[in-house]
């Protein structure tokens, strides 16, 4: 693996060399390396590009890394990854995609991930998206995540778009059964003329299921962001969506959080706020010795942390 590839892996999956535990590294549409363990199997799909990740019931303290890197300009990669997490397993899954595009052609990765968490299973899913390269070609990432949570299953999802992605449409769909819980934390930064659209569609079908979606984004320069969420409470359940955006320069941010209570015992909240950095925040940090620029960076870094 060359330096560019290693740097991409470091950015998206925080790994220097091969990770511990099970992993599958995909590079320019092909398998670069893979490791399976006694409890975690990774199988190449036969009918379409992608893999099945199978975690045995009761697997604890294990991790799976499945990063994707694209270094070939003009490459369009479509992949279907399915995760089957056995009953009462508790694992960490690190995904993410990094694009290094030095060409004038578009590089694109569309990752479609479907999670099936059995009863009582628990996962922390981390995905980071990052683009770089001096080429004029677009760097496009369109992740789609489908989440199916059985009774008392629990999923925590951290979705981060670090920088350098020209255009993204990020869709997340969740179907939740009795007692299941889903916590989604999203962080997005757009600059230049980048575009980012996020869609969350959650069905709280099971009694006492709960979802918490927290999205924070910063839109700079001429970039455009759109946040759409629809949480449907179909039974006694709890849903909370909060969407905060800092807008700078000539950026544009649209926030459209929707909640739909289809049952008298559904308790749903949404909060949305868009605004520039408050002048008094800058002033306060300047009284502590930071320059205006340093204060701005500090506020943005904290906000997206």
């Amino acid at each position, binding site marked *: 693996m060359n330096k560019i590839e290693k740097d991409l892996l470091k950015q998206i999956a925080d790994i220097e060399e091969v990770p511990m535990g099970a992993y599958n590294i995909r590079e320019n549409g092909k398998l670069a390396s893979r490791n399976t363990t006694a409890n975690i199997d990774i199988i190449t799909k036969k009918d379409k590009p992608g893999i099945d990740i199978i975690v045995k019931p009761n697997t604890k303290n294990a991790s799976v890394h499945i990063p994707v890197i694209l270094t070939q300009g003009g490459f369009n990669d479509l992949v279907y990854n399915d995760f089957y997490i056995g009953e009462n397993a508790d694992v960490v899954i690190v995904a993410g995609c990094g694009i290094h595009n030095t060409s004038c052609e578009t590089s694109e990765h569309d990752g479609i991930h479907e999670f099936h968490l059995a009863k009582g299973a628990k996962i922390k899913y981390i995905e980071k998206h990052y683009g770089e390269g001096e080429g004029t070609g677009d760097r496009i990432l369109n992740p789609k995540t489908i989440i199916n949570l059985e009774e008392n299953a629990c999923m925590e999802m951290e979705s981060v778009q670090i920088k350098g992605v020209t255009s993204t449409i990020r869709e997340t769909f969740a179907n939740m059964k009795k007692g299941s819980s889903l916590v989604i934390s999203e962080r997005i930064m757009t600059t230049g003329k980048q575009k980012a659209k996020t869609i969350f569609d959650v069905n709280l079908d099971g009694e006492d299921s709960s979802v918490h979606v927290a999205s*924070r984004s910063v839109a700079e320069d001429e970039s455009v962001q759109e946040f759409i969420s629809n949480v449907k409470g179909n039974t006694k359940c709890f849903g909370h969506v909060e969407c*905060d955006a800092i807008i700078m320069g000539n950026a544009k941010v649209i926030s459209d959080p929707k909640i739909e209570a289809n049952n008298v015992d559904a308790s749903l909240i949404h909060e949305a706020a868009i605004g520039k950095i*408050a002048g*008094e*925040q800058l*002033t*306060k*940090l*300047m*009284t*502590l*010795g*930071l*320059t*205006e620029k340093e204060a701005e960076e*500090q*506020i943005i*870094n*904290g*906000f*997206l*942390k």
Partner: protein
Amino acid sequence: MLELKDICFSKDNKNILKNINLKIDNNKMVVITGPNGSGKSTLAKIIMGIEKPNSGKIFFNGKDITNLSITDRAKLGIGFAFQQPVRFKGLTVKDLIEISAGNNIKVCDACDILADVGLCAQEYLNREVNNGLSGGELKRIEIAMLAAKKSKLTIFDEPEAGIDLWSFNNLISVFEKMHKDIKGSIVIISHQERILNIADEIILIANGKVEKHGKREEILPQIYGKVKPCHKLTNNSICNKGGHDNE
């Protein structure tokens, strides 16, 4: 240490400060008091550089700082605790204390500072300084930031506002400790008698002017000799003692 010469400031056609002249010496505890709307907070903002005077000069340790930015003044050694602290979504108490200390503070020292202002470090260090904190908690964090900054001149704008009675004595101790440890000057804008009682000097601002400035022993009897709570002082009234002052 600090000298203000003929400072005038007006806003919206209203003269807020009128020819302010005053000197604050090294290692002094100075309390600025006066009626609501008399210009105390504006004066503090002018010293910090948040507001610019229409005329007059400001000297800090002999250097003319009138045209210096907020950042430059902070780096020279001026600190300012806001009357209404700012909330930051994403920045934690630890972040702000580290920034205040110029990223040069051990976690255990940050914990000690939080303990001094009556906050349990374990509970607060990693908390975001956001809407989840009460006004009183924010106020204590604001004071902790200034304790961590260790400025040669620290100005507190009504630090007691929002602080409960139990914490009040601790607040006095924090000022005394800062004064002893940093050996700088502390300027506190306050209406509180107990804060006036710890001052070396008291400055009385009324109607945008320095009405009185002298040692506590001289000024305090003049204030309380003339003024009973909610009675007139010269042409202005000291009402709402201990209340908020949004000048």
